């Protein structure tokens, strides 16, 4: 008969890679990702016996706990963000239809964003959080979430277009 620990890790280990990169995406660096993952795993382990729905429910449940751990860290970090300054958005050039960028290319572009933009992009598009929930999680006004997302998407569009241009040029 398996122990609590064995049962937990049987469900946890297949998710560990995804969880690690999710934390990395939200927090922007691997060291923080490891810390957040450790914190979240301990919390999940302690609450494991209360989880209903068994193995099928585990991944989403675990991910929710992880996102909470991450946003807790972000709330502390982002508290001293100064006044929002408009980013310098270089003029967008019209380009023909792009090839679908690779996952790694998208991550490279997202990774380059300033933390306040990266956080809202990741929470919205990786974690499918609604804007109001992002506002609550980060303890910032909804309007700020909207404007940061708007700016972030403009920056990403430029960045992904550049990348596409480079790829085509290299051929």
């Amino acid at each position, binding site marked *: 008969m398996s*122990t*609590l*620990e064995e049962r937990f*890790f049987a469900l946890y*280990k297949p998710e*560990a*890679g*995804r*969880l*690690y*990169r*999710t934390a*990395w*995406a939200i927090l922007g660096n*691997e060291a923080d990702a*490891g810390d957040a*993952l*450790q914190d979240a*795993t*301990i919390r999940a*382990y*302690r609450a494991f016996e209360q989880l209903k729905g068994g193995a099928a429910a585990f991944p989403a449940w675990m991910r929710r706990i992880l996102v909470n751990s991450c946003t807790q860290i972000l709330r502390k970090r982002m508290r001293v963000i100064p006044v929002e300054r408009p980013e310098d958005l270089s003029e967008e050039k019209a380009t023909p239809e792009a090839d*679908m*960028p*690779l*996952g*790694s*290319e*998208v*991550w490279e572009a*997202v990774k380059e964003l300033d933390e306040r933009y990266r956080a809202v*992009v*990741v929470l*919205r*598009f*990786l974690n*499918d959080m*609604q*804007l*109001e929930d992002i506002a609550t999680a980060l303890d910032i006004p909804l*309007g700020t979430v*909207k*404007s940061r*997302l*708007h700016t972030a*998407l403009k920056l*990403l*569009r430029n960045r*992904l277009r550049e990348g596409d241009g480079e790829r085509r040029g290299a051929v």
Partner: protein
Amino acid sequence: MQCEQVQLELQAYLDGRLPPAERAAIENHLAQCHTCAEEASAMRDLGRIISGGLNDWVNQGVCPPDVIARIEESLRPARRRQAWWQTWPAMAGATAAAVFLLVLSASLDLPHGAASLPFVGGLAAQFFSGGPDEDPEWEPVNQATATTERDGIRLTVDQVSMGREALGVRFTVQGEPLDAAADMKRVSVGLGLMTANLRELTYVPGPNGQVQFTAFFTRVPAGESVQMTVRNLPMRSGPDAPGPWLVSFIP
């Protein structure tokens, strides 16, 4: 509505999160404004690209082994076990008898060498696998020291180990008034409220007038603070010092 204002609301609009009045206003604007309509379409495509790309990247993720190892290590103290008498109900009765004998032997002045109380040692070996040599799950869980001092004698816990069924505590007693060469047969060691949870007590006199004890107790839940009580340390001049020496730690 101004285009700038509309564009700020586009994501919320695309997500279906706007209240009816605002949604209608946006739709109205998009019907008339080509630029913003294009922008809405582009945002929807971009959202899919970002979502797909990030999910792909996450799905390829591997957690570094050292992070996994660190996490497993940090979970160990939270491991929960049944109390030994629940796992081995048949032994509970027998061990209760052993406990009775232990209490009895402790109060009788049994002669023995500078080693464990032989009764308990033999019984203990039968009823639990205590000690690093027999229990493969034996491991030190706490290297932090806990220390207390009274009557000129200092007691220092320097290692706590946990096995499947037992908790081991290694501690040193030292001080000028202490009779380190004396027989320790009257020393009483207990954990928490029960002094009868001691399974085995061994001791070794060391240099510098100290004595190192190793006490094995019935295993307790990990992660919760426990208090160890030591009484009746032999003194060089006069009767035993009753103490008690109290020290707390978290196994």
